[in-house]
């Protein structure tokens, strides 16, 4: 079992700071996702760890070993590339056996064959061993790439968006397979993705990146329920979070929010929003934090439009005198555009951020 540690690692490409002073400690056996939008430095982090690019500053350790000056072939890891990078002139068997034939490792031919067959069996590609990569479908290529990485039983597994070329169905199935694989082999896995659902379902912890900086490193529930800043709150979750700028006042057990031209009573949110009380704050409201009903208590609003999104109906409602926010409603509920509705906010799911630093005000 081997952990991975980045200490103050930076990487620039010309004028672009691809990675800015990264500190990240991954425990042995963890499944860590690197999550972030395009260009946020995820692949850079992975390539630094693999030794495909050199760090400008900082220290990278795999286990106890500082690997900054080790070439990739001596770091003892395995990697699955975004586009698989299978060797086109070798059969599937030769591809999977390739890591076993490297100098200094060469196992006996019989042993190589046994291991390749076992891995192929696990991944269901036994039938394909004699084929060439160009004769495989995308999903099959992907499994061969996984097999090539697994066959050596590496201490650390790197995966760079391995599912991004697959169709939605296959992606979900492979997601499960990868999770099962991790449970089976218990290697440390570093997994790059910009798909937050993938990160949420697979990881023990998620590292969220933006513009070359690590924003938050925490368990999936914590990332979702206690985002460290506006970026994280906005990036995770199915749709954009509504951000309301204004002031929060505590009113006993409740809280009052004063926006530009409107006010909201946030029933029961007094304690949660206490750290934000009496100051300018940005309130973050996800759709699932708002319940919408035709009448009863709550803030008055008008339905702008509705959409069916998977198992939910999403209602876009305009707060009287204020902005439009998305709310999640029962799929069977019916709301017409222009209808007057009431919004109730779930106090435990409200977030408050400092408008200047964008950091969360709720500990």
């Amino acid at each position: 079992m081997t952990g991975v540690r980045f200490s103050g690692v930076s990487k620039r490409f010309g004028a672009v700071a691809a990675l800015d002073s990264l500190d990240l400690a991954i425990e042995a056996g963890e499944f860590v996702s690197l999550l972030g939008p395009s260009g946020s430095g995820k692949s850079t982090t992975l390539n630094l760890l693999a030794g495909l690019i050199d760090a400008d500053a900082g220290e990278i350790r795999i286990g106890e070993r500082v690997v900054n000056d080790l070439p990739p072939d001596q770091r003892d890891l395995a990697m699955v590339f975004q586009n698989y990078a299978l060797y086109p002139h070798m059969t599937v068997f030769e591809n999977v056996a390739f890591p076993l034939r490297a100098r200094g490792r060469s196992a006996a031919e019989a042993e190589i064959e046994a291991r390749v067959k076992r891995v192929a069996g696990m991944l269901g590609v036994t039938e394909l061993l004699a084929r060439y990569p160009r004769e495989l479908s995308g999903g099959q290529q992907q499994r061969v790439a996984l097999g090539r990485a697994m066959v050596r039983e590496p201490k650390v597994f790197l995966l760079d968006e391995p599912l991004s070329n697959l169709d939605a169905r296959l992606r979900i199935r492979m997601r499960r397979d990868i999770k099962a694989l991790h449970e089976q082999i218990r290697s440390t896995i570093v997994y790059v993705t910009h798909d937050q659902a993938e990160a949420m379902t697979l990881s023990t912890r998620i590292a969220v990146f933006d513009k070359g900086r690590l924003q938050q490193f925490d368990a999936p529930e914590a990332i979702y329920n206690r985002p460290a800043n506006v970026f994280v709150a906005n990036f995770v979750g199915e749709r954009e979070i509504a951000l309301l700028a204004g002031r929060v006042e505590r009113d006993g057990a409740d809280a009052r929010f004063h926006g530009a031209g409107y006010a909201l009573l946030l029933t029961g949110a007094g304690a949660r929003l206490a750290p934000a009380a009496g100051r300018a704050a940005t309130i973050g409201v996800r759709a699932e934090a708002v319940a919408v009903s035709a009448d009863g208590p709550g803030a008055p609003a008008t339905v702008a439009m509705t959409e069916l999104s998977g198992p939910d109906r999403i209602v876009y409602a305009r707060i009287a005198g204020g902005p439009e926010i998305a709310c999640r409603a029962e799929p069977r509920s019916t709301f017409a555009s222009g209808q007057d509705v009431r919004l109730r906010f779930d106090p435990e799911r409200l977030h408050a951020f400092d408008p200047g630093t964008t950091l969360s005000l709720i500990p």
Partner: protein
Amino acid sequence: MSWRARSLLRRAVNAAIMLGIVATALFPILWGLSTSLKPTERILEYPPLLVPDQPTLAHYRMLWETGIGRPILNSAIVSAATVALCLVLGSLAGYALARFAFRGKQGVMLAIVAVMSIPLPSVLVPTFTFLVNLDLNDSLIGLVLLYTAYQLPITVWILYGYFRTVPEQIEQAAMIDGYGRLAVLRKIVLPLSGPGLVAAGLFVLTFAWNDFVVAVVMSSSESVRTLPVAIYHYLGFFGRDWGPLTAAAMVSIVPVIGVFVVFQRYFLSGMTGGSVKG
């Protein structure tokens, strides 16, 4: 005219033009072949026959008896050694240029292009004195080294261009799989660069096999004579004796044609299909 008739007409015209080109290119060779198979006294006969009515291998026998074996062997040795040396050195240099960023890389590339454009005859005399100083004139090794020096820039250039088409991620994958740079070059890059290697190799081969000027200047003894020089000597010894001359020319053409036929499929097929997606 209907589109069908028009397309037929266009194809007929195309075929006629191509036939014309092929005939023009092949005619001298076929004429030489025909001449080499005619008995001496009928070669200059008028009207000439394209297909000899009394074919004979007398000229070829005569070549063999006057010892054409040695020049053929010399040419083969020199060509093979030059091709091997150019491909080995050219692969290493081309790979370094294709994959590494190092100080002075632009300068090296510029120098390669510049060297390629120096006309060979202009360096012949200085090269000769140089070779004499090294005591390598009048030797096959000297010829191999010279040919390699002349052909290395173009080899490096061709291979550099080809190596850059090999997806870098495949190489990175191999490095992570435990292979160092040289092993990656040998097991991944070169096998995927078949067409590039063949193209560069044929370039070098045709030069080394056909070269007359350099060989005739740098060597004088009969034992190191290459085939083109030997053919020239047939012209010298026998005056206008066309039979042996054309027969020798045929002997020198055949291996080159053979090599091209064997390797032609490499010109047609790229080999990186199905390696990376997206």
